[in-house]
């Protein structure tokens, strides 16, 4: 069994609880164990890096050090947490001075990070560790006929890490195909949802959200699948306000990719966190059927 140190991040405690629940349920069903890091702290989001970079790296390192202690690679479901952990990890491995400086601070919590672990986004667990073929073989309720708009957002693919294809990634589409769904092509799949501009520059964020929903709607999507709690909240919870503002009539359910995988594995929707939507997802659940 593959085991990971799991860093849920602040959003998954409440706002995006359904992401946490469906991640735990589906990984368990697929033979992957997520062990939550004991006493993890906030990764600093983007705001920390606006104020002080060294402090931001330090706070991320505390989580890395605790993960290392348990001996497993770190997995983060939130794209912003993932990006912060990934790049802090890469910098610490490269820059001994930085690592020494940060370890001096971490002594205060009896921790030390020696740079021996890797950082992954939760989606990589399904794509790489489980794999499309194995996942496909475990599907009991294929989501046939469900038109899914796979929404990558930003920080799961950007900035570039190794040699990944940042202009035309396909892993999200392939993941949706593996569970029997029909991924649609639409122009905004890699475009920003507005992120924290929702708070600091609302008109700009609303414009981005509106364009994204419009793009998915033009592609006749039944649902948008996301891999980031911030994207989920921006796209779902503000649809009413967007409709007021732009005179549109969006009613597109926004679900986490793990919730769709869970449906395809035949897991009960309640265990996957269904029931706390702003935009009803009842119709989506009906696609999960045992083949006749």
């Amino acid at each position, binding site marked *: 069994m593959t085991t990971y140190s799991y860093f849920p991040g*602040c959003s998954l*405690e*409440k*706002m*995006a*609880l359904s992401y946490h629940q469906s991640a735990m349920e589906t990984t368990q069903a697929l033979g992957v164990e997520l062990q939550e890091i004991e*006493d*993890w*702290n*906030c990764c*600093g*989001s983007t*705001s*920390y*890096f*606006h*104020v*002080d*970079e*060294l*402090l931001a790296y*330090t*706070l991320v390192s505390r989580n890395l050090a605790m993960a290392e202690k348990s001996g497993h690679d770190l997995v983060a479901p939130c794209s912003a947490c993932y990006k912060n952990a990934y790049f802090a990890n890469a*910098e610490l491995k490269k*820059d001994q001075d930085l690592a020494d*400086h*940060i370890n*001096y*601070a971490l002594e*205060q*919590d*009896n921790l030390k990070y020696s740079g021996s672990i890797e950082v992954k986004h939760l989606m990589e667990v399904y794509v790489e560790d489980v794999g499309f073929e194995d996942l496909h073989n475990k599907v009991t309720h294929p989501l046939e006929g469900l038109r899914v708009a796979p929404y990558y957002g*930003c*920080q799961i693919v*950007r*900035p*570039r890490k190794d040699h990944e294809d*940042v202009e035309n990634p396909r892993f999200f589409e392939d993941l949706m195909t593996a569970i029997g769904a029909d991924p649609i092509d639409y122009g905004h799949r*890699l*475009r*920003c949802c*507005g*992120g*924290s*501009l929702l*708070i*600091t*520059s*609302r*008109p*700009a*964020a609303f*414009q*981005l959200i509106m364009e994204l929903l419009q793009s998915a709607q033009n592609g006749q999507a039944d649902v948008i699948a996301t891999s980031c709690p911030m994207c989920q909240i921006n796209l779902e*919870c503000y649809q009413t*306000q967007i409709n*007021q503002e732009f005179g549109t009539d969006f009613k597109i359910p926004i679900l986490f990719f793990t919730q769709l995988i869970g449906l395809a594995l035949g897991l009960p929707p309640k265990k996957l966190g269904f029931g*706390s*939507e*702003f935009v009803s997802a009842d119709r989506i659940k009906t696609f999960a059927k045992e083949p006749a």
Partner: protein
Amino acid sequence: MVTKPSFSEEVSNLMHASHGNPLKTCIQCGTCSGTCPVAEFMDHTPRRLIGMINANLKEEVMQSNTFWYCASCFYCTVRCPSEIDIAGLMYALKRYSIWKHQYSEEAIGPVFSETFVKSILRSGRSYEPVLAPSYIFSYGVREFLNEAHTATNLMLKGRLPVLPARIKRLENFKKVANRIIPMGGA
């Protein structure tokens, strides 16, 4: 003899892991501006801003709203043919403006970022209810009521915490932070 660094050098020194001055390699092609999803809201596009930095127009750059509109989507960074980390540049300018207290009064970004950091240093985790509503006031009563409506819905659906989460070893956590930035008893 010591010469005063140019504004362009000053800013590039604040860009993490940059060697030399990457801003000087800008060819003004505009790929960043064409890629940026929020360029239409900025007073100066990213391409223009880099040109202004290199032309030493410090005051105009610091008064610009450009970097506070950057949503950290990193599209410009991955597309720049000169491989300039443009989103990283926007972060550097944000830090510079907070550090020097040089930002326009109506900017919400700096205040939000600082409040966010302080709130994390208090509890170890972020707590949305204290963050979002306080800034929505700046958008007027209608927007505030809308936001309150959204928050109430989140609460009803069990998606907003009633109390802030706290980490267990909070005292140690604060001591760790203090070794990096002494905060006078924070």
